[in-house]
Each structure stands twice: as structure tokens, then as C-alpha cells.
């Protein structure tokens, strides 16, 4: 009987404790490494998001302590305004404004961490929205300084060209961009148009170009 006890004691205390200790220390290192890696990844993700990510859209509703932003995909995002600075983006600088200067349908972008469905805004910037239209010139209305465009996604739109519209054209000889004017536009040319406004809030087929870039049809016939 004593011999059996001795053998069992030897078996349990010499073999298993050592191997259990080894496994424990191995697993501790592995678990710690994994936890550290996951923590680092999470911290980096949060840092990147806080530092580099912004949320952009137009103001759907604004209350005392929060506003609702409609993002570019149409999603509604709640923005908490407890610790928020407000800025107006100008042509060459940004100036601090008050919350009262932010109105419904204003185009804004927001910086701050997102927790769940809510962004805690560190800063809200009121800016000007632009969108792009591109296509081929179908007809030119010289009397009204406008062009009819068939867009690359097959819509028909009219583009008004104003004196303030900045117009440039690709020069196929020099391979550089030159300033151009309405009189040099031709049917068949490809044009890239910048329009001021929030595309979601504009439901029409006539736009005013704030900027125009022309690729002459000859470029594609070379």
C-alpha cells in the first residue's frame, strides 16, 4: 500500500506539476501577447478614427445639445454638442462661430469619437458642398450660354455656364491644361462639371457650373 501511495505521489508531484507550470507559463505569455496585440489594434483603431475620421453631411435637425446629421448614404447620425467648437470654413481661413449659426440643411463635417450611434463632436465645421457631373456635350445653346449634357450614367441635364464659371481644357498638343471659354466648347466634347450645392437636396435637371474641365473629342480620335 505504501509503495502504491509513493508511486502515485511521485507521479502527481513530479510529472504533472512541472508540465502544468510549463503550460501555465506558456499560456500566460500567449494570452498576454494576444491581449496586448488586440489592445494595440483597438487603440490604433480608436486613435485613427479620432484623429483622421470625419463625418460629413447636412443638418436634418438641431436641438440644444445635439443635432441630427444626414450622411452621404442617407443614414441619420446623432451628434452630441456638449463639448463642441463651431467653425465656418472660408476661402482661405476658418473662423469660430456660435452654435446658433448652424441651421437646418447646412452642410457640415464633424470631428469626434463615435460611441454607439452617437458622435461626441469636438468640432463642427460649416462648409460649402459641391458635387460632380460628367458627360458628353449633346447640344450647345449659344443664346443662353448653356450646354445639354448626356452624363456617363445616361442622364440628360442642362448646364448653365456663367461668367464666374472657371473653364479649363486639355490641350492635346501641349498635353497641358489651358484656360478656355464658352465659344470653344463643341458637341461631342467630354466635360467634367463641378456644381455648388447638396446633391440630395437638389431635385432638378438644370445646374449652374462653378467649374468646368473639357477633354476635346479629338483626344479620343488620336
Amino acid at each position: 500500500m505504501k509503495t502504491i501511495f509513493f508511486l502515485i505521489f511521485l507521479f502527481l508531484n513530479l510529472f504533472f506539476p512541472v508540465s502544468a507550470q510549463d503550460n501555465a507559463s506558456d499560456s500566460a505569455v500567449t494570452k498576454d501577447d494576444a491581449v496586448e496585440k488586440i489592445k494595440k489594434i483597438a487603440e490604433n483603431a480608436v486613435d485613427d478614427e479620432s484623429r483622421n475620421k470625419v463625418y460629413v453631411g447636412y443638418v436634418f435637425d438641431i436641438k440644444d445639445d445635439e443635432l441630427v446629421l444626414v450622411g452621404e448614404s442617407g443614414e441619420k447620425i446623432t451628434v452630441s454638442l456638449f463639448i463642441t467648437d463651431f467653425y465656418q470654413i472660408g476661402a482661405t481661413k476658418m473662423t469660430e462661430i456660435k452654435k446658433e449659426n448652424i441651421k437646418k440643411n447646412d452642410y457640415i463635417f464633424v470631428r469626434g469619437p463615435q460611441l454607439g450611434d452617437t458622435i461626441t463632436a469636438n468640432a463642427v465645421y460649416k462648409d460649402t458642398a459641391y458635387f460632380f457631373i460628367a458627360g458628353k456635350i449633346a447640344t450647345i445653346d449659344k443664346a443662353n450660354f448653356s450646354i445639354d449634357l448626356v452624363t456617363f450614367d445616361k442622364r440628360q441635364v442642362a448646364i448653365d455656364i456663367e461668367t464666374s464659371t472657371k473653364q479649363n481644357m486639355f490641350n492635346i498638343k501641349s498635353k497641358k491644361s489651358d484656360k478656355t471659354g464658352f465659344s470653344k466648347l463643341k458637341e461631342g466634347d467630354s466635360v467634367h462639371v463641378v456644381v455648388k450645392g447638396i446633391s440630395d437636396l437638389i431635385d432638378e435637371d438644370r445646374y449652374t457650373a462653378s467649374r468646368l474641365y473639357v477633354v476635346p473629342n479629338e483626344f479620343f480620335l488620336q
Partner: protein
Amino acid sequence: MKKETIFATVFGILAGAIVGGFVLFSTSQKTEKMTVTQVDEKPNVSTQSARIVAAQKQLDIKSPQTDTISNKNSVKIEGVAPKNSFIIAQSPNREVTGNFENGDFSLDFPLVIGENSIEISAYSGNSIPQQKSIKIFYIPE
């Protein structure tokens, strides 16, 4: 029941529990290692997808990512496009163009304060371009 029989039974249960616990513990360790490896391998997956995109000759912007903030007044736009592409990068304030033969492109693009919506169009072989848009927000420190 003899003492030896009782002891042998108890010992059998103990030894079984220890061996079972050891096996379970080893399995969970392997699962953790696999999870960490998957996290580490994510960048390789995106690199592979970028190569696939280049092979398929589709316009793709590698950097910068859209909706990011810059504290510099210019940005280098890099990506892949069909070979021999004529690329136009247009914002409300500027156009930058370039011809790129080998499928990779890089354009230095000036930024203005606030939002910079940039539409990148790549013409290659026909008059209908491939297009992608990004937004970069320039906020000086």
C-alpha cells in the same frame, strides 16, 4: 470495497480530469493563436486585393482613404488604373492631370481649407472614364 479499489477509482477520475483539462487548454491556446494571426494578416489581404484590382485594370485609389483629415496643404493621390490612362483629378478649386503608362499613378494635389471633394477620372481606350471620388479635409494645426 477495498481501500485499493477506492483509491484506484479516485485516481482514475483525477488523472482523467487532468488529462481532459490539459487537452481543452491546449485547444483554446491554438484558437487564440489563430485569431491573432488572422488580425495580423489583414494588410496582406488588402495588398492582394490591390494586385487583383490592378490585374483587372479597374481604377482604384490606394491612398489617401476618403473622409480623412490632413494638416498639410497638399496630398499625394496614389492608385491603380488601366494601363495608358489619362487621369483627371478635379476638385472645386483645381484640376490636376497626368498620363500613366504602367497602371500605377501618383498625383500631387493641392488642398484648400475645409472639405476637398476630389473626383478622379481615368480615360483609357475610350471616351467613357472610370471614376472614383474621395473627400479630404484640410484643417491646419
